């Protein structure tokens, strides 16, 4: 059903070097932001200190969802972790810029570029 098109689908993967991957596709609203937060918390609990959020397939966001991402970022930085994003549409990139996420999180064009850079650093 069309339903599936915007309900956020989240999957996670634990990679080498304490890198956690969250892939999110759909609508990042309150519920969607919370689903990402849960996924990040789980990865952090199992030892990840760098979190990459891949937004391929995410086209609609709202400021409530993004504010939840800011909260996760806040908590992650507090515990010495870092966060990165990849596959942002131009509008989502612009929103991240306006809301100040880009000052505290690294942004990569795609997953390959992100993994290369984060793997090198981490």
């Amino acid at each position: 059903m069309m339903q599936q098109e915007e309900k956020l689908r989240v999957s996670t993967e634990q990679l080498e070097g304490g890198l956690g991957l969250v892939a999110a596709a759909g609508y990042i609203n309150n519920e969607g932001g919370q689903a990402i937060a849960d996924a990040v918390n789980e990865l952090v609990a199992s030892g990840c200190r760098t979190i990459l959020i891949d937004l391929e397939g995410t086209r609609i966001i709202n400021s409530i969802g993004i504010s939840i991402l800011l909260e996760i970022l806040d908590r992650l930085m507090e515990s010495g972790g870092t966060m990165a994003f990849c596959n942002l549409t131009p509008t989502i990139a612009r929103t991240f810029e306006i809301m100040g996420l880009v000052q505290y999180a690294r942004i990569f064009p795609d997953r390959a570029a992100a993994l290369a850079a984060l793997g090198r650093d981490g």
Partner: protein
Amino acid sequence: MEVALTLPLVPDVELIAARAVQVMGRSLGMTDGELESVTVATVEACLNAMEHGGQTCFFVRVNTHREDGGPSLEVEIEDHGVGFDPQAPPRTSPSRILGCVAKRGWGLTLIRELMDEVDVRSRPGKTVVRMVKHVGGA
């Protein structure tokens, strides 16, 4: 061409407005990027009408224009709630760690950044956010 929507306060009801923007914007030949910007701005305006309007429904009109300076899409979001002063700076709640970065209060800022023209008129009982995106514009 006008789409007119009367929307109740139901979860995700802003997606009906988003779909209207998409269908009308596409009929004007908007790019994906332009459509996405108008979609996000429309969603924010709907959330404000739902969150702050405090009534049982709100109204969305999407109009296509093909006059003078090229085609454009106009979206109006109207609610009959308490209203507010559009000139007042948004009350933001700064983050403890991130310092100056505020976590809420970004709706109207996003709308102004993503649209080409924005006009907010509000008085008790009637708030109308009117916004325009030009096709092939800046």
